[in-house]
């Protein structure tokens, strides 16, 4: 079943790559409307990636829009030896990074990020979500060199090589920074072990 699902996913990726190449060729030939296909296919991923950088929905859409515009302007710069999505993600990452440098999100030192609450308040789904959100926000409080590998690693469904390609960094560097970033989070949230166990128990209870 897993093999079938994997095969279907691979096939979808190949189809998307073909569609991207065809749309790019049409845009470069002067058909501006062909760009709509590219936006339609990649709007979700680009907005979600931007969200992970800033955790602000409105700003995420603005950033994604800017990334699409830059992609449109620089479409001729896509060399077809790599996937279009890799090129697009790398370009979007640059846009997000430089925009967030100019207008940073609220900078809270990692020491000041609220630690997940103790077991006493763990009975509501809201409290759980709040705890998870604390951990996610703590990622934004990390230094850029650790934050970006973490953001992109999880965005790419824990694929180190995809994250490395997006950042245009060697895989080894990305792995090292991921390790360091996780260590910083571990140090900040020592109770996460218990919390995660309880979350999983609660999920099981919900499913039952």
């Amino acid at each position, binding site marked *: 079943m897993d093999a079938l699902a994997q095969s279907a996913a691979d096939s979808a990726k190949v189809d998307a790559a073909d569609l991207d190449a065809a749309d790019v060729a049409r845009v470069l030939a002067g058909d*501006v*409307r062909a*760009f*709509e296909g590219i*936006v*339609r296919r990649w*709007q*979700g991923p680009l*907005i*979600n990636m931007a*969200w*992970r950088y800033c955790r602000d*929905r409105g700003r*995420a*859409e603005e950033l*994604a*829009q800017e990334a*699409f*515009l830059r992609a*449109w*302007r620089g479409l001729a710069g896509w060399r077809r030896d790599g996937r279009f999505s890799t090129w697009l993600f790398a370009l979007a990452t640059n846009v997000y990074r430089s925009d967030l440098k100019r207008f940073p999100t609220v900078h809270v030192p990692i020491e000041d990020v609220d630690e997940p609450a103790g077991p006493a308040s763990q009975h509501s789904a809201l409290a759980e979500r709040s705890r*998870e959100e604390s*951990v*996610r926000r703590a*990622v934004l409080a990390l230094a850029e060199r650790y934050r970006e590998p*973490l953001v992109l690693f*999880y965005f790419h*469904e*824990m694929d180190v090589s995809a994250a490395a390609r997006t950042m245009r960094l060697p895989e080894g560097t990305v792995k090292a920074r991921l390790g360091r970033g*996780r260590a910083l*989070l*571990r140090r900040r949230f020592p109770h*996460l*072990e218990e*919390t*995660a*166990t309880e*979350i*999983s128990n609660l999920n099981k209870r919900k499913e039952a």
Partner: protein
Amino acid sequence: MNEKLDNILASEPELVPSSGFLGSVMERVVEEAAAPPPIPFPWKRAIPGMIVAAGVFGWGGFEFVRYAIHDAPLVSLHKMPVPAHIPSQVDQVLWAAVACAVSLASWLLARRLAGRSGLI
């Protein structure tokens, strides 16, 4: 521990793009496509002016250095209050005239370039 962290960070809620997002991006793309292409910098016309300007500045710098070297031994602590060499008024007028002529020439050149490109 990494597994727990993975669970939390990998299970981000998925955002769905707002209904107007696609339209808004395409609107801007179409706007940009319809805009006239940016005016390229007129290198062919600018290069002669740049060469002349570089020549004038280079010559000025050379003269300045030559003047400084030539006069350096004449300047001493005893002579400081009264400079040893004061350029004559004719020299000063000449330099001022040269400066005015260069300014006028660069202004005329700029006007001509801008006039040809249709900016004024």
